[in-house]
């Protein structure tokens, strides 16, 4: 590792901090930088880094649900093939009536990512065209990837469970009776039944 190995990354962060207001950024490690912006700056920042800084390849878009703090965090991940650096752009959106502007005129494949986030989290992308259903069919409950959707209650209501056998025995007790060994304490402490 040479001495000035993080110079290129630091230059890009400084340039972005100087160009946009309310933007904070840092260098995470070799070839990874991240910036945090407000939700109304999303399309202008994405257009700027695509046209002027060489981040032309769109890698991934994700959404994290911070239920305790009351917001969603949208993450856009971009890659620059010239300088080989990955940029993560993060923006926070309110959980109640979440809505963000549509960005799929910048990269066409954003349509697929946005449709999935709309279906799984319930974030509204203003002005986006596309079928309502992407992965689920005839789903009438709340968006399933939110943290307050309880899967165990849902499956007990809708699906059947296989009942246990009538002569079902506890496995550890049966084996210890047969061989005469003691059941160690760590087995009973972390066991589920």
């Amino acid at each position, binding site marked *: 590792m040479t001495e000035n190995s993080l110079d290129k990354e630091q230059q890009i962060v400084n340039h972005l901090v100087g160009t946009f207001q309310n933007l904070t950024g840092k260098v995470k490690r070799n070839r*990874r930088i991240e910036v945090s912006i407000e939700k109304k700056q999303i399309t202008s920042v994405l257009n700027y880094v695509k046209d002027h800084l060489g981040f032309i390849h769109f*890698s991934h878009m994700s959404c994290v649900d911070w239920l305790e703090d009351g917001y969603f965090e949208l993450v856009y991940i971009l890659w620059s093939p010239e300088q080989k650096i990955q940029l993560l752009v993060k923006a926070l959106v309110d959980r109640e009536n979440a809505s963000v502007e549509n960005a799929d005129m910048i990269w066409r494949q954003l349509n697929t990512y946005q449709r999935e986030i709309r279906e799984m989290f319930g974030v509204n992308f203003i002005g986006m065209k596309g079928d309502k259903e992407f992965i689920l069919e005839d789903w009438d409950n709340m968006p399933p990837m939110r943290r307050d959707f309880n899967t165990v209650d849902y499956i007990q209501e809708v699906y059947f469970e296989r009942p246990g056998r009538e002569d079902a025995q506890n496995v550890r007790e049966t084996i210890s009776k047969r061989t005469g060994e003691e059941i160690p304490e760590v087995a009973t402490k972390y066991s589920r039944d």
Partner: protein
Amino acid sequence: MMREKATTLYLGPQHPGITGNMMIKLKVEGDTVVKAQTHVGYLHRGFEKLMERRNWLQSFTIVCRICVPEPDPNELNYSRAVEEIEGREVPERAEWIRTLMMELSRLASYLLWFGGQNGSAGLYTMPQWSVGDRDYILDLFEELTGGRVYHMYIWPGGVRRDLPNGFADRVLQTMDYLEKRLKQYDQLMFENTIFQRRAQGIGWIDPAKAVEWGVVGPPLRAAGFKSDVRIDDPYLIYDQLDFEVPTQQGSDVWARALVRRTEFQQSINMVRQIIDKMPGGPVYNKIPNPMKWTIPAGDAYVKAESARGEFGYYVVSDGSNKPRRVHVKGPAYVHGVTLLENILEGANISDVSFIMNSLGTCPPEIER
């Protein structure tokens, strides 16, 4: 003369010509496709919700089932992301063994691709040969890890166990056998005029727009770009191995087949170099009590090069013993939905399945 109306056809979930369980809704006029729309969701299991209820070590056991033909990049990416957030070191011998697993998995995936591409063209001898040869590599996996298809071998901190006695010799024997067979595949498939005439000029991707549309992997290399995660964002020990990344200029189905064939030969060379240069030492860095193992808060995005393209994992931790968010992005997410809908316009009906196989669409990783 009456004008033809467009008919709607459902190339549906039950069809012997599609790669997996997905549906393409085609609008055809005569024999030409006018509009195509992909429908996925037939294989959705909600992996990311399942992982929020399991702790870090239990999640590693289910992660390999996300991508069915090639499970190893999933395990590798999950382990590398967890190690990056926690700051855990991996012993050197474990990195070499991980690279060996990735290259063997790449060979197995290419053999399955040889079968699929030719099966959709009508050359049924090739699937019988290549899927039968893939069994020799699955035998090696079974000797090392215990399972033919799903290994659960690469975990955070290293690999699960060391190589058994005599394993290196069997690997080299299998590589010699596959190299001999590659000459026979050449005679049957690559020097076959019928395959060449069918494959040239079909499924063309515009090279000027390929990077912007998010194309990765062999389709991008067939469009002339020398782009591979193993040299752009190096991971494991690829910077100590000697290999080259092939490119072609045609950007059609024939160019992609040539790229994959050259990479097959390169992977065989890489496996021989790895067996030759592997150092000794421990194979894993022990994790603490798995019931109470917590990872500090943070996030990481890691990438790996699978046989179909760039595989990415975005993992977020909030300081507890369960993952907060694990988001998986497979190469077929872009290739199977927006790119496929674009390329199929103007294609002949009998080439639809051919083009799908050349892009490497694999539905389980689109919808997890």
